[in-house]
Structure formats: C-alpha cells, structure tokens
C-alpha cells in the first residue's frame, strides 16, 4: 500500500479494530491506539526525511478515481508545504495518545474517537482532492463534539461543546459554499486540486467572481482558525476539552483552515487575495495584540493557553497577508512550530488539571520545586511561546516579521510589540505565579511525571521544537519552492516585484570584495 495511504488509514483501521475489542481490555485498547499513532508518526518521519526538495511535483502520490461524473477522486500526495504538517500532525497525535492515560471511563469509545480524529486530520493534510479535503476535515471535527461533551471538564462543558461544534460547522459551511462556487466557476468538472490550479493559471476567474468567492473562503476557513473576531470559541472550547482533544484540536486541526487558504484560496484566486489581504493584516493584528492583551487578564491557565494559541495564529495570518515568499514560508513554519507548542501547552495544562483538579493560576505556587520535570518543560514552553531563539517558533516568527515588514511596516511594529512584549508578559507572569515563589500548601500533594511513558509526550514535543528551532532549514528548504510557485501565481496578474532590493544590487555591483564572495 502506498505509504501515505498507510499513514492515513492506519489509525482508521485501528479504530475499526477497537470496536471489536471488549470494553474491559483496557491495556489492549491503549496499546493499539499508541501503536497505531506511533506507526503513523514513524512513517511520517520517514517520508519527511525522504522528501526531495528538488523535485517540483507532488511526492508519494496515490490516486484512485471515485465519482467520475463529478470529477471526484481519492488523491493524496505531499509537497513541501504539507509534508511538515503531516509530520507535525502524526507526532502530536502520538503524544495525544500517550497523554490519554488520564481518561478512566469509557476508554474504548474515547480511543476510537481519537483514532478517527487522527485519521481525519492526516487525511485532510495529505488530500489533494477538494472533496476528500473537506470530508476528512469534517471526519476529524465531529469526534470533537462527542469528546468534549462526554469527557470534557468544567461546568460549562455542554455549552462549550455545542458552541465549538456549531461555530466551526458554520465556518466550514461558509467555506464549503466558497469551494463549490470555485468548482462551478472553474467549469473544469474536477475537484482535483492540482488540476484546478493549472486551470486557474491558464484562465483565471474574472475579478468580480474572485472578490465574491475569496471572502467566503477566507472567513469560512478563518473561523476554523480563530481569526479575530471569530475567536471566542477557542478559549472556552479548549478549556473544557479533555487534554488529548485539546492537543489535537489546538495543535493540528486548527491549522487545517490555514492550510486550505494556502493550498486553495491563494493560488487560485489571486485578485481576490490582493483585494482582501490588507484587511487580513489588520485582523491578524487583532489576534496578536488584542488577544495578547486579553490573555494578560486571564486567571485560568487553560484560558490563558487558549488565548495564547489564538494570538499565535496572528503570525500566520500576517505572514499570509504579506503575500510574498518570505511571509508565506514563515507562516508555514509558524504553523508547524505552533502545532507542537500548543500540544505541549495543553498537555501540561491537562497534567496539572489531572493532579490538582483546577487550573486557576492563583491556586498554584512554587511548583518548580515539587515537579521539577513538568516545571522545566513548562518554562521551556513559556519561552518558546514568547519566541525565544532555539525553539522553532522563533524561526517562524522572525521570518514572518521580515516578510511582513516588506508589505506593511507600520503593522509589523505593532505585531512585534504583541509578540515580544505582550507574549513575554503573560507567559512569564504565569510562570512566576505557578512555578516560582514559595510552595503553595494546596499543591503539596502534586506528583511529578515519574515513569518514561508519562514523560514521553512532553519530551518528544520539546525535542521537535528544539530540532526545528536549531535547524529551520529542514522546513524552509522544503517549503520554499512551493511557496515560490504560490507567490508567482499570486503575482501573475500584477507587475513583477523585483526579487532583490535595489540597494543590495548596487552594493554588490560596486564592491566585489572577498567578503561578498564568501557570502555567496
């Protein structure tokens, strides 16, 4: 079987298998879930390493026609942009499966839903057919509803589960209308993404239709990604969700909307994009600065983490809005880095909730002495969140700043403030109250993560952050060619933008010193 297929269907098959396992075989269920996600993760690492940057086409492709009349086929493949996302999704899913030890009742249903969600996410990222793209996303979204409703926490969990599901379904519906309009507008009788791209390059839609369809796609997918002002579902939803669901949703499923924008909306609707992106930049600022401010006022750690997660999405939108190579590449790097970070943060929050029964920041204090491992990981997560170099978030954020500065310098100033100062303020305040200072008596019965299985998910996520933080080229080299294609598609109707600023050209011509030669 094609390897990508295996990555997607392994969790789904495991889910089906689990329905036949009797309810009481808890170890077997946990073992199967962990094994399935581990397999997917290992294979995702394999294709990531085997991915060849130089080839222009999609790699590891598998295609099988389904409904010929409408042009639907099951088509999966990876290119520079989604190979990193598939990797991130698979690893986070494995971490989420490891963290699920805290679910103590109805494990069978939980693991089945978790595996279905994983399969859906991986399928969504790998899919190259619009129909299955949407289908896999919905497949991943529905289990969220059940998981938050049944295994969620907090008094408002019922409200939260309805809100998150209905809000996101509305977003998906708006996006679906856009996608269908795109399909009809193409008139090519195909849902296949590469074909549609080629079609739109040759005969683009006229500007009015683009101006109509693009906002549908933007806001539809934007709701899925908590674009300001459609972000209020996120903190309550993540606060009420069980830990593995929060990890998967905040880390991975949220990125689907952004991926859809990059894959579908930007290349196929360039005029619409150019029209609306300045607005998107302002909204991104809403995410970065405004949600950062709100995060500063939160007293509950999971709400703080939720708003922080929303704030980081601002980076991606800012990078996309810049509509240049650097911005888009940086945006994808932030997506991947934030996936690991969000999973890490919510994993930590879940651990603390499981131990202490509450996540009110004021109820904690001096945890670093009592829980050295968790405390250290939390400090690392806090610093990764405020963009400390050495973690992958810095590489992405700094790239986005460079890309955005070219397009909107004044907005970038505010964005930097949001990222550097506001982020540091609320994260370090949380660290100060929860981890430092004298030990709070309410915390004296908390226990650190003892055995390797408990530590494994955190170690894996932190390692990924550090690896990609120290070697960002692992990601950017792969992303860049594809991002360049997208930028070319975006600029095909506009005059070409020079790729090198005039000053460096003049300097390079004027001074052929050996230093310059070294730089080449």
């Amino acid at each position, binding site marked *: 079987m094609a390897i990508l297929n295996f990555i997607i269907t392994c969790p789904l098959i495991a889910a089906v298998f689990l329905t036949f396992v009797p309810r009481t075989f808890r170890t077997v269920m946990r073992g199967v879930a962990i094994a399935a996600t581990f397999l997917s993760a290992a294979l995702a690492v394999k294709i990531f390493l085997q991915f060849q940057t130089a080839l222009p086409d999609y790699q590891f492709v598998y295609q099988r026609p389904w409904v010929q009349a409408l042009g639907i086929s099951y088509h999966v493949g990876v290119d520079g942009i989604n190979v990193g996302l598939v990797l991130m999704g698979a690893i986070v899913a494995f971490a989420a499966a490891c963290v699920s030890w805290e679910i103590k009742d109805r494990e069978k249903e939980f693991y089945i839903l978790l595996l279905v969600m994983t399969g859906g996410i991986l399928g969504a990222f790998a899919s190259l057919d619009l129909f299955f793209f949407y289908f896999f996303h919905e497949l991943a979204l529905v289990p969220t509803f059940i998981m938050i409703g049944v295994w969620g926490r907090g008094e408002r969990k019922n409200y939260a589960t309805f*809100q998150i599901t209905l*809000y996101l379904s509305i977003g998906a519906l708006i996006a679906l209308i856009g996608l269908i309009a795109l399909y009809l507008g193409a008139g090519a009788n195909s849902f296949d993404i590469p074909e549609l791209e080629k079609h739109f390059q040759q005969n683009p839609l006229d500007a009015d239709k683009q101006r109509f369809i693009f906002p549908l796609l933007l806001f539809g997918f934007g709701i899925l990604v908590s674009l300001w*002002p459609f*972000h*209020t579902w996120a903190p309550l939803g993540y606060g009420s969700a069980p830990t593995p669901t929060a990890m998967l949703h905040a880390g991975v499923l949220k990125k689907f909307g952004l991926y859809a924008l990059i894959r579908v909306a930007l290349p196929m609707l360039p005029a619409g994009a150019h029209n609306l992106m300045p607005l998107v930049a302002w909204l991104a600022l809403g995410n970065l600065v*405004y*949600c950062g*401010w*709100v995060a*500063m*006022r939160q007293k509950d750690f999971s709400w703080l983490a939720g708003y922080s997660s929303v704030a980081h999405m601002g980076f991606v939108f800012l990078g996309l809005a810049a509509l*240049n*190579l*650097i911005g888009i*590449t*940086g945006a994808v790097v932030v997506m991947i880095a934030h996936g690991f970070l969000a999973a890490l943060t919510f994993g930590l929050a879940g651990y603390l909730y499981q131990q202490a029964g509450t996540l009110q920041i004021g109820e904690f204090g001096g945890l670093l*002495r009592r829980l050295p491992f968790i405390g250290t990981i939390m400090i690392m997560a806090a*610093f990764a969140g405020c963009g*400390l*170099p*050495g973690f992958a978030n*810095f*590489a992405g954020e*700094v*790239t986005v*700043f*460079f890309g955005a*500065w070219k397009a909107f*310098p004044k907005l*970038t*100033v505010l964005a*930097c403030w949001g990222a*550097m*100062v506001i982020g*540091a303020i609320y994260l*370090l*305040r949380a660290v*100060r109250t929860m*981890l*430092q*200072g*004298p030990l709070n008596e309410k915390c004296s019965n908390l226990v650190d993560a003892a055995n390797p299985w408990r530590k494994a998910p955190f170690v894996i996520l932190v390692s990924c952050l550090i690896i990609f933080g120290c070697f*960002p*080229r692992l990601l*950017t080299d792969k992303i*860049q060619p594809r991002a*360049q294609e997208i930028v070319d598609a975006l600029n095909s109707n506009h005059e070409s933008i020079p*790729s*090198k*600023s005039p*000053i*460096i050209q*003049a*300097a390079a011509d*004027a*001074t052929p010193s050996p*230093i*310059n030669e*070294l*730089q080449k």
Partner: protein
Amino acid sequence: MRPELLPWFVLFLPLAAAVIITLFTRRDRELSAGLSNGAVVAGLILSVIFVSWAGWQAANPESTVNWLSIGDLSVQFGLRFDPLSLLMMLIVTGVASLIHIYSWGYMRDDPGFSRYFACLSLFTFSMLGIVLANNFIELFIFWELVGLSSYLLIGFWFERPAAADAGKKAFITNRLGDFGFILGILAVWAQLGSLNFATLQNSLTAKPEALGTFATAIGLLIFCGAVGKSAQFPLHVWLPDAMEGPTPVSALIHAATMVAAGVYMLCRVFFLLNVPNSNALMVIALIGGFTALLAALIAVQQNDIKRILAYSTLSQLGYMVMGVGVGSPAQSMFHLSTHAFFKALLFLGAGSVIVALHHEQDIWKMGGLRKKMPVTFWTFLAGTLALAGVWPMSGFFSKDALLAQAAEHHKYGLFALGEFVAILTSFYMFRLVFVVFFQPAKAGSSAHVHESPSVMLWPLRILAVFTVIGGFIGIQALDAKFFSPEQALLDASFGEQLIGPIIHEKLAAAVGLFAAVLGFAGAYILYFGAVSDPLPQKLGAFSRAMRNRFYFDEIYQRYVIPIHESLASVADWFDRWIIEGICVGSVRGGTNLAGSLLRLLQTGNLQTYAFLFALGVAIVLYLALR
C-alpha cells in the same frame, strides 16, 4: 584540524557542558562543576591558541553556515574574527573562567549546585555567541539567549519571591529593548538588503547616504537594544533588582559581560550610527551621560554592598555609552575591557565579604574586616582605585581616554558631566571601602570572620593583577587600530603607555586625578570612622530621593505599567461583553428567538393543522393555475 575551527569549539563547549549537566549529571555535583569549569577554561586556552596562531586580524575573517535562506532573506550562522571580537572572546572566556572557579567555592553549599553550573555554561555559550556573531539575526539570537540565562540565574533561588520577581522584571525590561532592536534590524534589512555586518559596512562605505531619511530612526531603534541590555535610562530599573542572584552571577553577568554586550553591539555597528545625516549619536551620548549621573547619585546613598556596585556598573555603562555617542568607540571598548576586570574583581570581593559574614549585605553591619580578610581588602582596594580612576590603575587610562575624547570632540558639557560623575564615583566607592573595611569590628557577626578559601581568593588575585596592568597591555592600541585604521598609531613602548596620557591629554588627566582626589577627600571626611551615615541629616529630602532610587520604580509601577494593563482590561471587557456577549450572543439569542416564534405554530390542535394544510394547498393551486 583546521585552526579556524577552534573558535567553534570555544563557542560550543560550554553549550555541550550545559546540555550534559542538565540531562545526565544533575546528581553528581562535582562532576557538573568540573564539566562546566573545564569547558570554559578549555575555551580560554583554545582562544589563546587561536589568537596566537591567527593574529589579531585573521586572513579569513569569517566562517559561516547558512542557517535560514528564503529569497532575499539570508541568515547565516557564522563567526567573525576581527580584533574586536577576538579581544572580547579572550576577555569573556578569561573573566568567565575565573568566575567559574570562584563559584566552585562560593556556591559549594547550595543544593542547586549542578543547575547553577548548567545555567552558567549556557550563559557563557550565549555571551560568546554575541561577541563572535557576524550578522544581526545571529546577534539577536544570542542576545535573547543571554536574556534567558540571566532570567534563570537571577531567579536561581526561585523560591524567594524577590528573586523570582527580579528575574521576570529583568527579562521583560530587556524585551522592551529588544522590541526596538528587532525593528531596527528589520529597517536595516529593508533599506540595505543584508544582515551581515561586513556586507553592511561595505555598503555604507560605498554609499554613505544609503540609509536615507531613516538614518536617525534606525540608529535609535538599534540603540534600544543597548538601552535594554546595558540598562540605560529609562530601562535601567532591572539591573539593581538583578542583585537578587548569587554574587558570582552579578559579577559575571551584570558587571563584566552581559551588560557590556549592549556597548559591544553599539561599537560593532558603529558604522550604522555614524552616517552623515543621523542624529542618533547625539541622543546616545545624552542618554549615556544622564544614566551615568543618575546612577552615581543613587549609589551615594545605597546601603547594600551589591546595590552600590550595581549602580556603579550602571554609571560606568553610562560612560561607555556616552563614549560611543561622542564618537569614540575605541575608547569605549577600552573602558569596557578594563571595567570587566575591576568590576568583576569588586563583585567577587563583595562576595567574599558577604560569605564571610554569613550573607550579610548591609554595609553598616560590617566592620573589622581589614585585618581579618587581608587579601580581600587589598584586591578590593585595587579595584576601587581603578574604578575611581587613579593612576596607574587600568581604570585611569580608560576613563581618561574616554573623557579626553569627549573634550577633543568639543563636547565640553559631557566632559564636565563625566568629570562630575568621576567625583561622585570616587566618593561613593571610598565611602564603601571605609565603611566596610575600616569600621571598627562589631560584636556578633564580625567575631568569627575569616578569610575566604583559596578557590575564591585566586580569582581575586588574578583579576587584581589585570586591574593594575590592564592599562598598558595594549588593549587600547588594539581597539584604536580597529576603529581608525587610517590613523597610524605607533606601537608605543611600555613607558610611553604608562606616562602617555598625562603628557598628551593634560586637561583630562589632570581633572580626572583631581576628581578622584576630591571624592576621596569627601569620603574620608564624612565616612572614615563613622558608625552611621551622616548624609541624610545634611541633605534631607535629596538624600531620601537618592536612597529611594529617585522613585523611578514607583513611577513606572504607578503610571506607566497601568496604561498597558488598562489596555488589556479594555480588551478583556470587549472580548467578554461585546464579541462574546453581543455578537455571538445575538446569533445565539436570535436563533433561540426564531425557534421560540416558530414553536408557536405548533398548537397541538389537529384542526389548526388541517386548516393550514388546506390553506397551503389552495395557495399552491392558485399559483400553479394562474
């Protein structure tokens, strides 16, 4: 092995030590300390080997790896070997080695011994990265990492609320500076298209107006980074609080190296500040001068030995920044180098005193130390003389050079300011020496005082040697040659270097020495043999203001920070009530309302349904048949 790889080892050995200690050797204290010390001493040895092999101006000035390369953006990870960075590399590894060794004794009884050395190694790695970086983003990366190490080390005793708060304050205040810094970096890249220092320097020499109208703005934004890292006004508030950390940390980070990074950075990118249509240097000089004065005034009335030294550091940093601002980066670097020696010496000496008195830090509770701790006393005195600028200590040469340059560039206001601050410096330092060492012994804590162990004394001795000879081992010539290679400086002989300043820069030398003597006299009159501070009665409210640090912390706490907090509150309110309450609420409420209205159609009455059914049929028939 190719010798160009040596600096890479120097850079990465401390990181390797930090990682190994964190992951593997936490429980073995001696091994952790050994690893950390070994890494930095090996770094020192390798640095010396490299410099003696390659000379000060290496033939191949850079060694790089492509770290991130997307379109126009090309960020390298590379090391630069020119006199400036090599000098700093030697100083950093040298001072860090001494302080690592000192810490082995100082932190011996602390339960977090291994963690301390891991953080210290991380810091050494980051600091070396700053001085060896060859482009802005690499510099920024290590800049932030140094901030992280500082956070970890200031908050080392994290269970103490004051320490934890101080660490947070330091990091966030630094971040404010870094905010300006990154904006400056972005602007430079946008205007000039490169991030590499060498390329930028070449671009600006080829075309000095390349920065256009943004020259001042860019210069000031980049200066923001130095304002944060080197604790200049108005971001100076974190440095005194940073004294909550262990004393060797204060010596290494907050005296000798990290805070000097800001000055180093300004000197490194001096060519960006020195462009024709930029007023940045003037602002820089003014801020530096103001900081020097402010800090010196505050130091006069502090009673904690470490706070006095902290404010003294602030003041000297102000000098260095002022030096850059008047256009003499070479002399600033010279002062930076000598300051590293004598300030580290003073802090380590203070540490020796503190540990001998069982962690007593109030100078008025100390006494009787001159006879009982001779090594500490004499080395401390050497450091004080250097700081006060007494010939022939290194501090005299560097301070004199700086102020002479100010006079030469016709900045007489700043010259006068600098000399006034010199008076204050001498005054408060001798105040410190008289009160700590010359006071009569007090009963109780001073009874069991004895000199510190040798592992702490040898670094003091070595630093004292450098403090004395630092003025004439050629540092100044090196810096001068780097910054103004066209001025043919003859290699001065030893004697020439010794007497040179007095002969060539008579005004500065004379006024400087006079200032030192004046301060000494004032301190002697007021503090020799005093048992309590006489100044509060004499100066009243002004003295209180000095002691309370001119209320800057309070002003920030009461007026500046609440502005930001209120913005956050507004955002929170808006989110809770407007977006969630009104917008989402209206969708929710609207749906509920529609549902309730439609529900009214369900009367449950059979006949209503039948009627509506018939009505519907009639309407449809009408529409179909018309």
